[in-house]
């Protein structure tokens, strides 16, 4: 396991470094954004983090006003994901759950017919990513389109005990529009006696 960034490699002393470490950023104009652990003991090595956090601002070329942004881990496209969601749209509120599906939800994103310059915001938190537990993934999504759209919360579980080493975000059947920006952060623990 890589030495955590809050430990000085030369002295072994704990430092007061940033607990959130900027790992990578993507400004894609393709259908898929992929983050892969570098497994080299450097900043991009997922094995040193307790959690991961993704922050995104996204629009797509989907032919309608809004589509979904899926998340897959370790390139697993099997039926190993479960979701519980809660959303509001105007005065309507709804919730639902899906078991044994092939993706987690990161959010809903504006499509090509949404008003120009409207992008959708989302955050995703991935917890205890190097544990032998099933991985818990929580997302918030703001697909606000000026009088229409959704605000949504998602609780996802990836039913795998593997450490997370790859994250794929995919606009469903569409290309993410230029101007989209997605940032990945590593969240460090601080083990104390």
């Amino acid at each position: 396991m890589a030495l955590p960034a809050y430990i000085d490699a030369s002295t072994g002393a704990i430092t007061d470094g940033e607990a959130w470490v900027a790992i990578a950023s993507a400004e894609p104009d393709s259908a898929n954004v992929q983050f892969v652990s570098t497994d080299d003991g450097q900043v991009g090595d997922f094995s040193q983090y307790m959690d991961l956090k993704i922050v995104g601002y996204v629009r797509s070329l989907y032919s309608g006003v809004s589509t979904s942004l899926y998340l897959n881990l370790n390139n697993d496209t099997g039926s190993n994901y479960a979701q519980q969601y809660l959303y509001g749209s105007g005065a309507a509120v709804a919730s639902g759950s899906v078991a044994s599906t092939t993706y987690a939800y990161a959010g809903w994103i504006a499509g090509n017919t949404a008003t120009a310059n409207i992008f959708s915001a989302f955050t995703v938190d991935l917890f205890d990513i190097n544990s032998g537990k099933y991985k818990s993934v929580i997302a918030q999504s703001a697909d606000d389109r000026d009088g229409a759209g959704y605000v949504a919360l998602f609780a996802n579980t990836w039913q795998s005990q593997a450490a997370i080493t790859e994250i794929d975000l995919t606009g469903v059947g569409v290309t993410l529009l230029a101007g989209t920006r997605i940032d990945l952060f590593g969240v460090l623990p601080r083990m104390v006696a």
Partner: protein
Amino acid sequence: MAVIEAIATTYLEADAASVTFSSIPATYEHLQLRTNIRTARASALEPTAIRFNGDTGSNYASHRLIGQSSTPLAGRETSQTRAYATGQMPTATAERSFYGSGYVDILDYANTNKNTTILFLSGENEATYPYVTFGSALWDATAAVATILLYPLHGSNFARGSEFTLYGLKSS
């Protein structure tokens, strides 16, 4: 100077009735608590309770917005002896690898002129009872938060492998 610092992590190597963060320095602007939880309760589902500074009085209020399968719910409580830190979490009735997770933001926690308001987001997908919960709570006291107590609401233990990390966020 770091903007976000990890203050302490507790990773349970055995079941425990509670987890406490004490002597929290007042040198940050805000706190964030991140959790990954399962409890040892023999019945399904158990929320996580939170208290500040050892206050067991009826000084807490909460709101929760919940999605449980196809049923959205909302509710509130007042004059409680604890607030919520998470919605429902998996228990001993769930498959062994299921843990729930979430985070709690504790804002302006060191300011002694304001009551403390928190917000949280949590979720779990235990097969029979999936939940996502967005909530808030008010601690009706102006003291700086120096101690945080977390415990399973129905009196069981946090299960081995549950994890809790407290972060401090600094301002400019």
